[in-house]
């Protein structure tokens, strides 16, 4: 599976550790992955001949900017400790549950026997209160990952942490110092109340809706005719132009490594160092953060734990569950703000990259709240970009590219560097669970996303991601599976193909070792980070054999993208939107990878 070789020499490992220690300025002989600044939090490395790591899940008080809340912590911290593994190890992670409810840990992005994947009801029964579960698996990859609860809404309460795996071979990324940066959202409310609020009232947490005042400003800016037309077209579709996030800064504080913006998390550096920042979006409800460090260019070197060809950018959007590693090289002895705005601009997480502890740099203003466009509603715009053709918005029965269609050669593969032409939606409108469909679907691989890219900053787009080493499976797809992301904001129902999880009576079936194209179409007007457990999705972004491998794909509204998959690990795997509340409201599926005899057991690690 892994592209990297396995035979890590012990000596290399020791030399690596030692150099790490020297860089961090620590002379201890004990495990030396010291991350100065990760709140001096424990860094857990496997111990003893069995490579054991012990984790304890329990309730704990957690302070956010001076206010006390109740969290679920791992080994007493939020986020949980940094777990640092080595590619090639067989590890044993013992997880003790000190909660009153069942819990679990899912190792996000890790390829492992599916019984170790940590999804209660899919891969195992969960960890009952008071009991300990032993996760055992061989570590067959490297990079930045994370882990989190897959039980109920525990993740919202702090049950997540970073996981870094060092490569068996040489790390192609050179750096002098590194920090994991876990971005997350925190609420003092009970997460079950948060969910109930959204179910009972559409837009409960949206305090950035369009008002009468905004209407008048829009008429002044765009003229009365265009403004009215714009408002009417959203009205006609019963869609809100400000549907950006369900749960917002109205209840959330945004955290950087567990700290609120006022608590100013610090990462230290020395002038001239190459600092590797390992960003992880561990949010429950904040579909994306937009991250920048004013005054510093960032070079993206890894996405979802996979090395990519370095891309220099000013800003990137990170969807829930995605990870991006960037290198920064501060040339001046001064503090820099690490600024992560929520997609809807209702708040931010913030920390400081500083030469000395306790420093801070100016914190940028939040940018203005963006609004949805006709394109986000799946409509084709004319050249002026304002108009919409009413003919195109209604039903269309021209099914050029039918739902679940098995046809291979319909020109879906984008030409390198070129957006694929828009695709029309099929006749299936997905029923009550889908308030809308994207009549036209766009590849949007060159678009950074709503609210980005119009201010002169260079923003990362999916097209930029190019894997460092070619993918191994060069086969053409033998089969195609198409899934539509659907939702009804008014009823707060979320689903695939209009069906909530409780409405399906079996898993989506993948064949062991087949070459498969998974096409995802976002029929909703919101972003969804879609996560497939247990196997890579090679995003077809026009880079051929260098298409990036992702465990989570952030889909923009009305976007149609595809990924090639080779399901190498048999078993049952979860597949879902990583917005916790969307998953719980039905945007969840089980994927079953079985061999020809229907077997899902017995792994082949050759």
């Amino acid at each position, binding site marked *: 599976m892994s592209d990297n070789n396995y035979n890590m020499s012990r000596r290399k490992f020791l030399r690596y550790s030692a150099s790490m220690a020297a860089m961090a300025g620590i002379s201890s002989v004990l495990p030396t992955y010291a991350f100065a600044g990760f709140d001096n939090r424990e860094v857990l490395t496997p111990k003893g001949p069995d490579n054991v790591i012990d984790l304890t899940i329990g309730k704990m008080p957690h302070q956010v900017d001076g206010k006390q809340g109740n969290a679920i912590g791992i080994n007493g911290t939020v986020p949980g400790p940094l777990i640092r593994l080595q590619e090639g190890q067989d590890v044993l992670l013992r997880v003790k549950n000190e909660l009153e409810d069942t819990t679990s840990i899912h190792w996000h992005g890790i390829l492992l026997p599916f*019984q170790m994947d940590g999804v209660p*009801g899919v891969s195992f029964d969960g960890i009952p209160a008071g009991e300990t579960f032993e996760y055992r698996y061989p570590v067959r990859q490297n990079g930045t990952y994370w882990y989190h609860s897959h039980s109920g809404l525990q993740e919202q309460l702090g049950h997540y942490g970073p996981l870094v795996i060092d490569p068996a071979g040489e790390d192609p990324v050179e750096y002098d110092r590194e920090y994991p940066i876990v971005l997350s959202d925190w609420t003092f409310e009970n997460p079950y109340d948060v969910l109930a609020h959204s179910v009972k009232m559409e837009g*409960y947490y949206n305090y950035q809706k369009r008002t009468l005042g905004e209407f008048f400003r829009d008429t002044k800016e765009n003229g009365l005719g265009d403004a009215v037309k714009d408002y009417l077209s959203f009205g006609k579709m*019963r869609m809100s132009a400000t549907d950006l996030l369900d749960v917002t800064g109205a209840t959330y504080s945004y955290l950087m490594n567990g700290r609120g913006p006022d608590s100013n998390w610090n990462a230290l550096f020395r002038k001239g160092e190459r600092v590797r920042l390992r960003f992880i979006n561990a949010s429950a409800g904040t579909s994306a953060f937009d991250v920048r460090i004013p005054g510093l260019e960032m070079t993206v070197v890894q996405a979802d734990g996979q090395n990519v060809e370095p891309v220099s950018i000013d800003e990137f959007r990170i969807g829930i569950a995605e990870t991006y590693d960037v290198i920064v090289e501060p040339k001046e002895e001064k503090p820099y703000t690490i600024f992560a705005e929520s997609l809807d601009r209702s708040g931010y997480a913030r920390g400081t990259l500083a030469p000395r502890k306790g420093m801070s740099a100016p914190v940028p203003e939040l940018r203005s709240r963006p609004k949805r466009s006709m394109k986000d509603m799946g409509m084709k715009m004319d050249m002026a970009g304002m108009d919409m053709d009413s003919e195109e918005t209604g039903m269309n029965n021209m099914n050029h590219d039918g739902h679940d269609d098995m046809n291979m050669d319909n020109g879906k593969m984008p030409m390198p560097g070129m957006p694929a032409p828009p695709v029309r939606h099929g006749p299936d409108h997905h029923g009550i669970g889908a308030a809308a469909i994207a009549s036209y679907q766009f590849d949007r691989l060159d678009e950074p996303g709503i609210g980005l890219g119009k201010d002169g900053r260079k923003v990362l787009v999916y097209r930029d991601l190019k894997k460092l080493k070619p993918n191994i499976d060069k086969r053409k797809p033998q089969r195609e599976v198409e899934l539509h992301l659907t939702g009804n904001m*008014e*009823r707060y129902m979320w689903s695939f193909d209009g069906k909530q*999880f409780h409405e399906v009576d079996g898993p989506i079936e993948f064949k062991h070792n087949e070459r498969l194209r998974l096409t995802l179409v976002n029929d909703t007007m919101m972003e969804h980070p879609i996560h497939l457990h247990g196997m890579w999705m090679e995003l077809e972004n026009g880079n051929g054999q260098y298409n990036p491998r992702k465990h989570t794909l952030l889909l923009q509204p009305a976007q149609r993208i595809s990924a090639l998959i080779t399901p190498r690990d048999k078993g049952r795997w979860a597949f879902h939107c990583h917005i916790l509340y969307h998953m719980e409201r039905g945007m969840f599926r089980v994927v079953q990878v079985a061999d020809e005899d229907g077997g899902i057991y017995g792994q082949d690690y050759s």
Partner: protein
Amino acid sequence: MTIIKRALTFILTVLAITVIAGSSAFAQKAPEFSNDLMMDNKTYVYLIAEKLEYRSLNGIDPLMWEIQGFVGKDINKFWFKTHGEALTTESEAEMEFQGLYSRAIDPYFDIQGGIRYDLAYEGGANKSRGFAVIGLQGMAPYFFHVDGGMFISEDGDISASLEAEYDLLFTQRLIGQPIFETSIAIQEVPEWGVGSGFNNIGLGFRLRYEFVREFAPYIGFNWERKLGETADMARTGGHVSNLSLLGGVRMWF
């Protein structure tokens, strides 16, 4: 000899199976497929006092309420609705209760069917009547909240009513709500002051301030005019048209 051999083979086999099954975590059986893992089929309970208000009207100053709620899942629900008026100056009240089965038929609309029960008190006497109800409730294009019903009384009289509301945001918390109401009847029911044809139209406007989403006091006005035969009946006993100022609170949980 053969017995020992057999026994040994058996013991070794059992041992081998035990070791293989026990040694490897990979041998663990996973749970059977279940679609009952998420909260996507959960029952919710919702109750909203859309209107709970005091009106200043020709010295009779009624208290008025409109409360509804449901118990149910995304598609199927039981809806409960009540609205009514009680005079503060006299012992006089009129109220209506509905119990409805509700089913989503569209992303935005529910069809509802059930029963309605009307009750009226006037100076110690009271009267009541029952109806069968079929209705439609949901959000129409351009964000109009619509609630319409058709009623057949126990005496076979047929009538219908419609209410439409719209939320107009002055700010994120200061929200104006224009309301339009009308009702229509086929047969006249003089005992209840109902004429045949259009009975009335009502226009209202309420301005609420959402301190929190669940709690919003409001002020506003309501204008109502009785029409046609209904108006003729009203002329003999009271007012055909009235305008009232009102204040109240909207809350839900």
